[in-house]
């Protein structure tokens, strides 16, 4: 048929574009540029966290907001705050039982192993968040570890009789709270010096982050790390709950 022309056109153009990407990638010649500044000025031992929260803290703020937004829109897809929920009523309205929520989880062996594993993971996550400025890790990594432990529990037990159970409202509060801490800590920077997200080391003669002697003064970075950690763990957990349960949708469309 005449579709053969389209086949040829689309494959040719795809080949050209792919060739363009490969050609560019092959010729990359890295210039050091601004990286030299980042590696040569010492703020905290973990240089990646320094870039993330000090040099380019505003990007991290934007990225937190993307996660908030994503949770918001995912909730909206499942019927929260729509102007008109006719489509969802049509799809989910007339079913007797919720088949996703009925899934019982895996075998007893996995169930026995899952709970200790997820508790260990949670503790590890807390540790990674709190030590983010001196050791490898940080808010994202720790937050996603905690969320992963929650997901592990949900997958092995099913959403209904999962022993680790975060309340939906609680997670929501945690998330808003984390993002607000980030934004307001940034505002204190304006109050002190006129620069948003300034890394304040001491306020009224006191260290902002009290740390034992011998360790450096990290300023507000640990607090930012904690805020991001809270937000990531709450965001990812909420998304998982939303994606794995139909109860939320039925509740949303009923009112």
């Amino acid at each position, binding site marked *: 048929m005449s579709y053969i022309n389209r086949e040829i056109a*689309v494959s040719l153009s*795809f080949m050209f574009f792919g060739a363009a990407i490969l050609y560019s990638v092959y010729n990359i010649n890295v210039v050091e540029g601004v990286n030299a500044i980042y*590696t040569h000025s010492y703020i905290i*031992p973990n240089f990646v966290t320094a870039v993330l929260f000090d040099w380019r803290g505003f990007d991290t703020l934007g*990225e937190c907001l993307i996660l908030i937004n994503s949770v918001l829109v995912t909730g909206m*897809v499942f019927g929260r705050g729509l102007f008109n929920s006719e489509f969802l009523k049509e799809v989910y309205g007339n079913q007797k039982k919720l088949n996703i929520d009925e899934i019982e989880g895996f075998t007893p062996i996995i169930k026995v192993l899952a709970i200790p594993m997820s508790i260990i993971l949670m503790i590890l996550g807390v540790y990674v968040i709190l030590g983010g400025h001196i050791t490898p890790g940080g808010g994202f990594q720790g937050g996603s570890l905690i969320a992963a432990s929650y997901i592990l529990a949900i997958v092995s037990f099913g959403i209904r009789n999962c022993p680790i159970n975060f309340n939906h409202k609680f997670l929501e509060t945690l998330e808003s709270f984390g993002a607000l801490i980030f934004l307001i800590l940034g505002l204190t920077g304006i109050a002190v010096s006129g620069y948003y997200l300034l890394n304040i080391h001491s306020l009224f003669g006191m260290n902002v982050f009290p740390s034992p002697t011998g360790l450096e003064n990290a300023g507000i970075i640990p607090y930012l790390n904690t805020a991001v950690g809270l937000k990531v763990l709450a965001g990812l957990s909420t998304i998982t709950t939303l994606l794995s349960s139909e109860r939320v949708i039925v509740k949303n469309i009923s009112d």
Partner: protein
Amino acid sequence: MILYYDINYDIILILYPIIEIAIILLILVMNMDLQLASFITAGILAIVGLYGVFFVDNVLKKIIALSALGNGVNLTLIAIGYKAGGIVPIKMPSMEFTMFATKAVYPLPQALVLTNIVIEASMLAIMLALSIVFYKKYKTLKASIILKED
């Protein structure tokens, strides 16, 4: 209405591991530059992702392909930070600072990747949610049925 996606294009996705094995062989046998190898891998990963988005007629596979594309981009970014014989950019108390500063890999790309991972995850979550709703409605994941002209 449009037929030209009915051919089973998934077969080409099998080529990807073969290319990767070829690159690993090149590194081992011909002493290929590690940074160049990772750039090429990243490029190929991105192209495979794009390929999946354009030609595979399944919503879930499209989403997986999008995540492959994002990972290709992330790999490109990470490889920009590469330094031959570099060390992790975390300064231990015992290290001398000038030695550390010259040897540490670039921290900027790593920070960018961390940011991008969360962005990708958030986009993915929304798309998965949408595909759940549409699967419930149409009982299929074919893009040409779910997202046909209306």
